[in-house]
């Protein structure tokens, strides 16, 4: 009789203990606001893949608690990105948000996170405006003034170009920004921008713009847009007999560029975040190996930067010793020389200080040209 009661008591206390343990190990929820469909779905999907590879590579935890991700598809759309941020904060109660991947969407989602005082980090949002005057908006990449400047110098010094034409996506803050910074630096160096033409995300026919560009007789076509528009424009440029070299920004970096562009994008050069040969720290190498083993593919910039964003948030949680979003944001601002999959990262006013990598497409493969440090 007594033994029965005792065992019941024991079972009861075990149950209580088990719940207590479960309570202590309650996961830390991090929101993912990613482009899983829509115009730049390649970035969101690559980003998500990078985070999954990171999960395979190491146990993602902080303060003894596991990490749980909540994924929302923002459909590559500004309004959807803002809604996604709202939903992750209000309904899912996440402590931090990773994504969107592109600047225009971050300009919509950032203010919402700022107001709710929850940190949000864009893995590849390069437009300077996204973090300006904000203390809860971050990025894991360099900013466009730096990227545009490097592109202009590369065109002027290394390629010897003096006459450049621009084809710019006016619907993307990223493309407009990059085009402006390129033009400013290129003219400062003594070059001339002989034609500037515009397109809009989702347009497919660029023959009118390219005809005008061809008439201006440039030596280089600078297209700081996203991959789908770059690929289609390259195909049409070649068909119109515009055979000058093409230079692009990090937006060129997606397998679709080669799939759609085919022979037309052969020789295309771009400034970007990543090349497997560019970074040699142990974590970067481990990431490259895990990525190859898990996916059977070569690692890409967007996966690596999304993984970096996770590492930056987790590091901040550990240093803050808390999962309070305000404490995490404050700690993220203090990130110094953190080892990540793309070298090391330091954060200054929400921006990551990172080198630019220049690559060229040769026989359908990205060839590593140079790394330019800030």
């Amino acid at each position, binding site marked *: 009789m007594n033994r029965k009661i005792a065992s019941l008591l024991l079972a009861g206390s075990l149950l209580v203990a088990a719940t207590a343990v479960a309570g202590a190990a309650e996961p830390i929820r991090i929101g993912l606001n990613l482009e899983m*469909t829509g115009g730049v779905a390649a970035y969101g999907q690559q980003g998500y893949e990078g985070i999954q590879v990171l999960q395979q590579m190491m146990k993602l935890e902080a303060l003894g608690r596991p990490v749980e991700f909540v994924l929302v598809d923002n459909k590559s759309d500004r309004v959807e990105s803002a809604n996604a941020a709202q939903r992750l904060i209000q309904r899912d109660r996440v402590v931090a948000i990773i994504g969107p991947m592109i600047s225009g969407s971050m300009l919509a989602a950032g203010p919402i996170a700022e107001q709710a005082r929850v940190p949000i980090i864009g893995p590849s949002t390069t437009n300077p405006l996204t973090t300006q005057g904000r203390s809860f908006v971050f990025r894991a990449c360099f900013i466009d003034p730096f990227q545009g400047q490097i592109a202009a110098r590369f065109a002027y010094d290394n390629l010897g170009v003096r006459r450049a034409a621009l084809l710019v996506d006016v619907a993307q803050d990223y493309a407009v920004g990059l085009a402006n910074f390129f033009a400013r630096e290129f003219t400062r160096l003594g070059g001339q921008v002989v034609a500037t033409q515009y397109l809009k995300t989702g347009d497919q026919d660029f023959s*009118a713009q390219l005809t005008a560009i061809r008439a201006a007789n440039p030596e280089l076509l600078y297209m700081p847009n996203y991959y789908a528009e770059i690929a289609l424009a390259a195909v049409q440029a070649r068909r119109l007999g515009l055979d000058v070299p093409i230079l692009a920004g990090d937006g060129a970096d997606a397998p679709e560029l080669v799939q759609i562009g085919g022979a037309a994008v052969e020789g295309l050069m771009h400034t970007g975040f990543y090349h497997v040969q560019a970074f040699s720290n142990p974590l970067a190498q481990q990431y490259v190996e895990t990525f190859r083993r898990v996916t059977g593919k070569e690692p890409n910039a967007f996966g690596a930067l999304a993984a970096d964003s996770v590492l930056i948030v987790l590091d901040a949680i550990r240093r803050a010793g808390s999962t309070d979003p305000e404490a995490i944001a404050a700690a993220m601002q203090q990130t110094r020389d953190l080892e990540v999959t793309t070298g090391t990262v330091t954060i200054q006013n929400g921006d990551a200080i990172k080198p630019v990598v220049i690559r060229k497409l040769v026989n359908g493969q990205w060839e590593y040209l140079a790394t330019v440090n800030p």
Partner: protein
Amino acid sequence: MNLSLEVIVQQLLNGISLGGLYSLLAIGYTMVYGILRLINFAHGDVFMIGAYTAFFLVGVFHLPWWISAPLTALLTALVGVTIDRAAYRPLREEPRISALITAVGVSFFIENLGLVVVGGRPRGMPVPPAFAGSYALGPFRVPGVTVWVPVLTLLLVGALLVLVYRTRAGMAMRALSRDIEATRLMGVDVDRVISYTFALGSALAAAGGIMWSFQFPQVNPLMGIYPGWKAFTAAVVGGIGNVVGAMIGGFVIGIVEIMTVGLMPHLSGYRDAFVFALLVFFLLVRPTGILGEPMKEKV
């Protein structure tokens, strides 16, 4: 800006190039409307299905084009017939507005189904060499597709006209367009003729989808939306219900669109707005379009 005669001629060629593709799509739109008085808003999405079918047959199963193209037309025709059976036939006796609203629903359904089934990322279309390059005519460049699209469009329009005016099925279609009930009373299997119409319209959309993805070598689940709207505009501008009008409307829209960008480069972002402004203009000034006859009230 550099506006030489050479540039203007090249821009005209660009406009014809784009316009030919709109024409091809618009004739499918206008045919279904001409016979059923139904604006099939899902036509652009059938066009997308056509492009994807060709993409899978050629890019994934590696079938040669001479098999893939007819097979694509056939499969897409089946899709069109299925859409009619599932979505429009149950509403045949209902007011026309119900079918119109359903068409919008079908359009959203196909787009989202596409996103689920094939994912949101665009894929590169394998383009046969005859369509991949361009021909140089002196200083001008004409893409391969542009040479073939007008030829194909003319052939298809010719075949359609023969079919509509010289065959019994065509006679049934024309009778249907006048009065469905009376035609049914005459012993014509109306549902069969309508299936036939959808099959033809969808096969035309497939031809448009293939040509479009040759010109702009990619496929994605939302690729049909804007071409669909432009083709609808072309059909209205040309005179909706009129096959030759749709062809002319397509070229008008293509040239207007290209000239907007060519003459006002800083407004390129608003090219669609110019096209739809043209639609509004026609609806206000000449609602029956370029070749349309004034509407007669049925007695």
